[in-house]
Every structure is written in structure tokens, then in C-alpha cells.
């Protein structure tokens, strides 16, 4: 059974790694600072909302790209939403691929409809990949936090 100090160490190392890999940015720190005794679950609540909302948007995007006649305004609107929420929780890489996605859509030309559709599908694939990655990492981070708390320790923030 790991000691509290060891568990805290694990949590810190894991978190620092996420920042170093660019998966999370300073906005995630901002969220942590908003958490206190009167709102002890704030980060988990917001991130959970982010997971739910993102999954809904990714589904909508996939459906929209499968249409006979793709509505690129709708696509842009969904990606804009996802870009916004990922930015708000500090999911930096998800935000970045959303920006790339929107840039590709803006370059669209009338003649290249099939090319555009394929490009968008590729972009969506990238977004899904980055989203899955950050989701897995954040879920692991929350589990590590729970372990620290269960062992009687506190979360050493900022790291």
C-alpha cells in the first residue's frame, strides 16, 4: 500500500507530464484554483460536462459529414463549440486540432467538394483522437487524486 507521500508524488509526476506534453495548459490550473472547500468537486464537474458535451458534438460532426449534401456552416459551428470548451478547460491539443479543422473548412472551394469532405473527415479523426487521449489522461488523473484523498492526503496544487 503506497504511502500518502508516494501517491502525491505519483500525482504530481503524472500531472507535470500532461503539461509537458501539451495536453493541458494553464487554463487547467485556473480551474483548480476555482476549487475549494465549498466547491470540492468543481474540476471533476466541469470536466465531466466537457466529456458529455464533446461526445455529443463529435457524434453530430460525424453525422453531418455523412450527409449527401454536407452543411459546412453546421460543421463549423460544432467545431467552434468544441474549440471553445476545450480551451475553457485547458485541453490544449484538442483546441489546437479544432483550430486546424476550422482553418481547413475556411479554405474550401466550390470545385473541391469531395476533397473537402475527405479533409474534414481526416480532421474529425484527429479531433477524436486528441479528445480520447485527453479524456483517458484526465480520468487517470482524477483516479490518482482519489487515491491521495482516500489515503488521507491533500492534493498539492499548484504543481
Amino acid at each position: 500500500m503506497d504511502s500518502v507521500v508516494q501517491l502525491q508524488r505519483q500525482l504530481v509526476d503524472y500531472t507535470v507530464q500532461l503539461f509537458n506534453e501539451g495536453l493541458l495548459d494553464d487554463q487547467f490550473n485556473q480551474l483548480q484554483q476555482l476549487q475549494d472547500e465549498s466547491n470540492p468537486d468543481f474540476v471533476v464537474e466541469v470536466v465531466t460536462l466537457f466529456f458529455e458535451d464533446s461526445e455529443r458534438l463529435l457524434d453530430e460532426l460525424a453525422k453531418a459529414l455523412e450527409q449527401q449534401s454536407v452543411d459546412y456552416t453546421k460543421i463549423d459551428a460544432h467545431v467552434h463549440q468544441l474549440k471553445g470548451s476545450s480551451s475553457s478547460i485547458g485541453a490544449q491539443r484538442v483546441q489546437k486540432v479544432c483550430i486546424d479543422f476550422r482553418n481547413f473548412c475556411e479554405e474550401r472551394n466550390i470545385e473541391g467538394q469531395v476533397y473537402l469532405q475527405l479533409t474534414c473527415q481526416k480532421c474529425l479523426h484527429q479531433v477524436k483522437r486528441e479528445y480520447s487521449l485527453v479524456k483517458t489522461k484526465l480520468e487517470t488523473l482524477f483516479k490518482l487524486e482519489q487515491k491521495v484523498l482516500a489515503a488521507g492526503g491533500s492534493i498539492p496544487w499548484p504543481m
Partner: protein
Amino acid sequence: MAGGSMENAMVGGGYTDEPHVLAVDDNLIDRKLVERLLKNSSCKVTTAENGLRALEYLGLGDEKRTALEDNVSKVNLIITDYCMPGMTGYELLKKIKESSSLKEIPVVIMSSENIPTRINKCLEEGAQMFMLKPLKQSDVVKLRCNLMNCRS
């Protein structure tokens, strides 16, 4: 408003130490975030998911109520996202400034995009401040001090 604080310009007269803010944003996560940020700065918060709902809350909706008695007199600040489907934050700002009952309420516009023409357009229409998303606690503290003449 020589000398005096912003209080006199607020609809409904003197507010307490807990200003009531109406926050408008179509993004669920951003609504939750701005609500927490404002509450941490001792504000009372009401959120709305779009311009229409915001106007309804303020008494300018289709169902005209005798609004002055209820919500309008309580709102000290409106903070709204710029990019929203249907009515944009800019359009909401215009409607508020065109209303005799609401035009004195300071309006702050938020956006994730730093576009000078957009910013100028909003400021010219009467927005008090323009803030870049994602908002941080320090932004909200600045906002409070700027608009409500607090002394930290």
C-alpha cells in the same frame, strides 16, 4: 458622474456588496465557468443560454411584463459571449442600449477571438469592456474593480 461611483448609474439604485450579474453564453462549460468565477468574486449570478432568454429575463421578451418590478431592477451587470447562434452578443448589446429601461446597465462582451474591428464595434455600441476567453479569476477581479469601483 463626477466624483461618484458607478452605483448611481445602475438600474434600481444602490446594490449591496453582492452585485447581480446576468451571464449569457451558449456554451454549457463556459456558463459553468463564468458562474463560478463570478461567484468567487462575491457576485450573485443568473445565466442565460442565448440572447432571447436574456432579454426575456430582463423583461424585453415577447411577453411584456411589468418588468421593472422584477428582474430588471436587480441586474447590475450583463456579461455576454459574442459568438452565439441566433442573436449575437453584439445584437444583444444593441437591444439593451436601445432600451430606456436597460441602457444604463453595463454590458461586457467576451470572445475567444481577438479581432480589433469586432472589439471596436462593440465598444462603439456602448460595451463597457471587451474580454478575451477563456476568462481567468484575475480578469473577473479586474472587471469588478473597473465597473464597480471597489477598493481591494
